[in-house]
Structures are given as C-alpha cells and as structure tokens.
C-alpha cells in the first residue's frame, strides 16, 4: 500500500513529528506508514486523513487499483 501522506505533509508544511503530535501517535508510526511498512487501523487512517484535510480514499493507494 502506498500513500500521499508525504506530499500532503509538504503542502501543509508539517513534519512527521508535527503530524504525529496532531494525531497522538509516535513519529516512527508516521514514518512506517509513509514507507508502506505499516498498515494503520481504520481509526488511525481516518485521523490522518482528517489532520491532512483529505479523505482516506485520496490518502491511500491500494496495490490493485
């Protein structure tokens, strides 16, 4: 699974740490989601999408799409 988190973070001038603080997770969790090494729960995916003012559909790219 790939994501647009990095691009959206850059758009809102947020570091991984800023985003992590905003949604209450560790910085490494954001790093691993960005790298596609960790699949977040639906709630975390929703929180990230909300923090980046987008939708889950626009945030994550599933391999079969």
């Amino acid at each position, binding site marked *: 699974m790939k994501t647009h988190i990095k691009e959206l973070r850059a758009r809102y001038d947020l570091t991984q*740490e800023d985003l992590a603080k905003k949604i209450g*997770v560790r*910085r490494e*969790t954001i790093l*691993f989601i960005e*790298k596609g090494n*960790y699949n977040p729960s639906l709630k975390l995916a929703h929180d990230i999408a909300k923090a980046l003012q987008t939708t889950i559909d626009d945030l994550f790219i599933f391999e079969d799409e």
Partner: protein
Amino acid sequence: MKGKKEIIVATIVVALVLLTLFFYLMGTGKIELNQIGLVGIALVLVGLAMYIIWDKIRNVQKGLPGKDERTISISYKAGYYGFIAAIWSAVFTPLFFDVSSEYELKGGDVAAIVVLVSAFVFVVSYLYLYWKGK
C-alpha cells in the same frame, strides 16, 4: 501521564532485576560456566529493556505518546512469539540435556531456562518488529 507511570514502573522493575542479579552473584561465591551464560542472557535482556524504556522517555519528552497502536500490536505479536518459545523450551530443554549430557536438570533449572528463553524471544522479536515497522 499514563505513559510516565509505565516508564516509572518499568524502571523500577529493571532496577529490581539488577539488584536481584547483584545479590545472586554476591551470594553464589564461585560462578560456574552455565551460570555465566544465564546471567549473561539476563544482562542482555536488561540492556534491551533499558533501550525500550529510553526510547519511550525520548518520545514522552517530545510530547509524543510512549506507546501507540503500532507498538501495542508489536507487543501482542512479540508476546505470542515469547509464549510459543516458552512452550517449546519447556519441552525441549530437559530432552536436550537428557540426550546431550549426563547432567539431569532440576525443575528450578528448567523454569529458569523457560523464563529466560521466552523473555529473550519476546524482547528480540519486539525490537525486530519495531525496526521493521510491522
């Protein structure tokens, strides 16, 4: 606050383990080779536990949580591996000593080995999953 409490409890546990090891070594007098191995594994475990605690402290100091859904999921997976290791080590440790040497293990020895093996597998798989990401 919850993260801080966990850090304090974990630090106390590590300190108690170190204190127990210290008293054990003081009381033993002459240390045998197999005891060096067991104490060595315990010290490695303490070192790895201290690394995990330090990592949590670093996050809490930055205003980030000490644990989140990823670390909780990693703990569950590592706990599962540790549990499996405990079962298999309880089965194979007496068997291994029976076949490979004349030395017959006492119940206490087997219990100590099972605890050390499962703790070792837990900590190693926790750190592996932590660095791998899932």
